[in-house]
């Protein structure tokens, strides 16, 4: 029995900010203080507040330490663990009340509006210990399914709950299972899509790192529902911590008899294998993913036949995303009624978003469907740092679109996002402020899809490339208004004719920025001006004569020596030689240098 539990985030975010060293230092210090038997150190998954990492939470007090460094550890040990005095200077300030008392983490702005279903164990349990998962009702849902329910009952529960796929498309999960279950008995497969490729998205990784057993349990439930005995998790090789923890979890589940033959003595057999993805974005597309598991080059194939009919090795297969699976055990345990209360009419439950870009609380949040973008950005996300103003948010990564400030009060669910030309996608949410050029951001995403296009179909291979070239022309100031119309037409051609989801959605960033920020495109074309001051070809730096005091600091810092002038006299920039690096603007202490 330990009198205190210290939870330290071992997710990828906090690991990269040094949580491993903190754990090692803490274990050493505790040993030296003779406290190793009294205080338990637990490496957990992601708490969500990655911006404040490394994170350490001490129970029973519930003290939430943020941005901990190894140098802080001796103080935490001698003050907190030996003398019982909380080190207030390290506490997350929002958890400290005016009288100095610690308030619950759930009351902070970041957590207040969140509802954690898929992430309920992340940052709470030790993901490398199956017993901690079991303590929090782990494998109870599997037990219930195997002993009390028929396969058709399980599917009915999912249909009634209204769970939709969290990987992007939002297809009803119960329907998918129903199709696969209806196929004649024989070899069938359950596949988990953990090939999370959207730039800026990391919810699947965090679930696998923080709560791998929930995915295993849900896959076994799926196996029972459709009559499959084999599961495959296709996970990115770029997620080493997730892969390691998942393998540990699978091994522990096998040892405990929760995977393997005759689970709970019911005669049901199920086992899971891991396949590593080799870093191609297109392999997140379900048919390409299956082709990749089969050992071929990851290229999509036409549907139909759908995987539910002829999937992995030509056998009936269901493919669900990690987050979708993570919702299933809670639904089985707590019931349809409970789940249906959460969310909107046609989108039930919650959605996990990875907040990134120009936002204070970078991290992972889970909110009920129907929460508005304003609540996510301004309340949970803590707004834009440095006094910037919100311009737009990109959802769905390179397949999605942007949501402008005027639509911030749109409740976020599958259908409302579709209606405004974006999509839920897997849940990356990139916030942009006034310093982001919308043409440039569309070009960035197009560059990504051009790079990741597998090349099998022409619209995607050549179409996206041509689209990229047109965008490049715009950012160079060489495009005409005619190009804009051509671009739009090409977008629709690609959408209608590409083979798989990658190509069909690739033009979305262009279409949505054209829809909401057409004026920026026009400014680039007609005025040869980039309103956000990003596109280098359209920029020039100027010195304001009335502000320049002739300190010469700009001239001394210019890497190409294009600034001239005498001391105490206003300087001048030779724009024919300027490389627009911005070094002079950064160094000027008088705000005398502006870009236009």
């Amino acid at each position, binding site marked *: *029995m*330990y*009198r*205190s*539990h210290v*939870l330290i985030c071992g997710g990828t975010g906090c690991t990269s900010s040094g949580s491993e060293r903190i754990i090692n230092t803490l274990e050493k210090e505790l040993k030296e203080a*003779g406290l190793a*038997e*009294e205080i338990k150190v637990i490496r957990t998954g992601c708490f969500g507040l990655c911006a404040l990492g490394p994170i350490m939470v001490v*129970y*029973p*007090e*519930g003290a939430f330490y943020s941005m901990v460094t190894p140098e802080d550890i001796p103080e935490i040990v001698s003050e907190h663990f*030996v*003398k*019982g*005095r909380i080190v207030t200077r390290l506490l997350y300030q929002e958890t400290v009340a005016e009288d100095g008392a610690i308030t*619950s*983490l*759930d009351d902070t702005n970041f957590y207040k509006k969140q509802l954690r279903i898929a992430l309920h164990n992340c940052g*709470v349990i030790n993901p490398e210990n199956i*017993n*901690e998962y*079991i*303590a*929090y*009702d*782990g*494998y*109870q849902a599997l*037990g219930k399914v195997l*002993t009390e329910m028929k396969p058709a009952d399980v599917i009915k529960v999912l249909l009634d709950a209204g769970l939709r796929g969290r990987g992007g498309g939002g297809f009803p999960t119960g329907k998918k299972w129903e199709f696969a279950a209806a196929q004649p008995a024989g070899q069938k497969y359950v596949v988990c899509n953990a090939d999370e490729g959207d730039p800026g998205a990391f919810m699947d990784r965090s679930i696998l790192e923080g709560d791998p057993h929930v995915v295993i349990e849900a896959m076994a439930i799926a196996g029972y529902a459709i009559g499959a005995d084999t599961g495959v998790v296709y996970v990115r090789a770029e997620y080493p911590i997730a892969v390691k923890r998942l393998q540990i979890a699978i091994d522990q589940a096998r040892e*405990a*008899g*929760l995977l393997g033959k005759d689970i*709970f*003595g019911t005669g049901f057999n199920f086992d899971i294998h891991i396949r590593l993805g080799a870093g191609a974005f297109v392999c997140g597309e379900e048919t390409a993913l299956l082709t990749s598991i089969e050992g071929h080059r990851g290229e999509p194939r036409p549907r139909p036949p759908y995987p539910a009919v002829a999937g992995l090795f030509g056998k009936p297969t269901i493919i669900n995303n990690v987050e979708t699976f993570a919702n299933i055990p809670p639904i089985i345990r707590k019931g349809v009624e409970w789940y249906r209360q959460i969310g909107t009419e046609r989108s039930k439950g919650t959605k996990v978003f990875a907040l990134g870009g120009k936002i204070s609380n970078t991290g992972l949040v889970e909110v009920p469907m129907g929460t508005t973008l304003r609540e996510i950005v301004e309340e949970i996300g803590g707004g834009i740092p440095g006094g910037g103003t919100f311009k737009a948010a990109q959802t769905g990564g390179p397949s999605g679109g942007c949501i402008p400030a005027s639509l911030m009060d749109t409740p976020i669910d599958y259908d409302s996002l579709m209606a405004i030309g974006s999509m839920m996608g897997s849940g990356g949410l990139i916030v942009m402020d006034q310093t982001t050029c919308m043409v440039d951001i569309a070009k960035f995403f197009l560059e990504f899809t051009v790079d990741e296009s597998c090349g099998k179909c022409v619209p995607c291979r050549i179409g996206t490339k041509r689209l990229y070239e047109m965008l490049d022309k715009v950012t160079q100031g060489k495009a005409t208004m005619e190009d804009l119309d051509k671009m739009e037409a090409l977008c629709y051609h690609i959408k209608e004719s590409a083979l798989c989801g990658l190509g069909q959605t690739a033009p979305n960033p262009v279409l949505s920025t054209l829809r909401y920020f057409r004026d920026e495109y026009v400014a680039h074309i007609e005025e040869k001006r980039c309103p956000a001051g990003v596109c280098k070809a359209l920029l020039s730096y100027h010195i304001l004569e009335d502000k320049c005091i002739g300190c010469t600091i700009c001239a001394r810092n210019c890497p190409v020596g294009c600034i001239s002038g005498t001391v105490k006299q206003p300087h001048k920039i030779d724009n024919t030689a300027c490389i627009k690096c911005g070094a002079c603007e950064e160094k000027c202490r008088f705000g005398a240098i502006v870009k236009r």
Partner: protein
Amino acid sequence: MKSLAELQALRDKMQAQMGIRREEELSTRIVVGMATCGIAAGARPVLAAFTDEISKRRLTDVAVVQTGCVGICQYEPVVEVYRPGEEKVTYVKMTADKVARVVADHIVNGNVVTEFTIGALK
């Protein structure tokens, strides 16, 4: 694991060990004085005895925490017990042997062990 009953037994056992990891306040707090005076007088074995006893009885709603010097160093080890709706009870000159009785009588059954409290001092 061959049956659901086994899984449930394991869950109950593990829950008892993880009860302190809760967001809501635990109802009973046992506060052990762990300043230099307390430690010198033997507070550490007392604290260990409390955690052992609570684990043995699977009390999930009790927190054992330490504090600094309460100011009555001559009566260390000092242990204060806070229970909802009751006045704080201060036990003095505690030993590991006395712990089992405090847990059984006071924490579980609600009867203060008056003879160990500060009020019983002559």
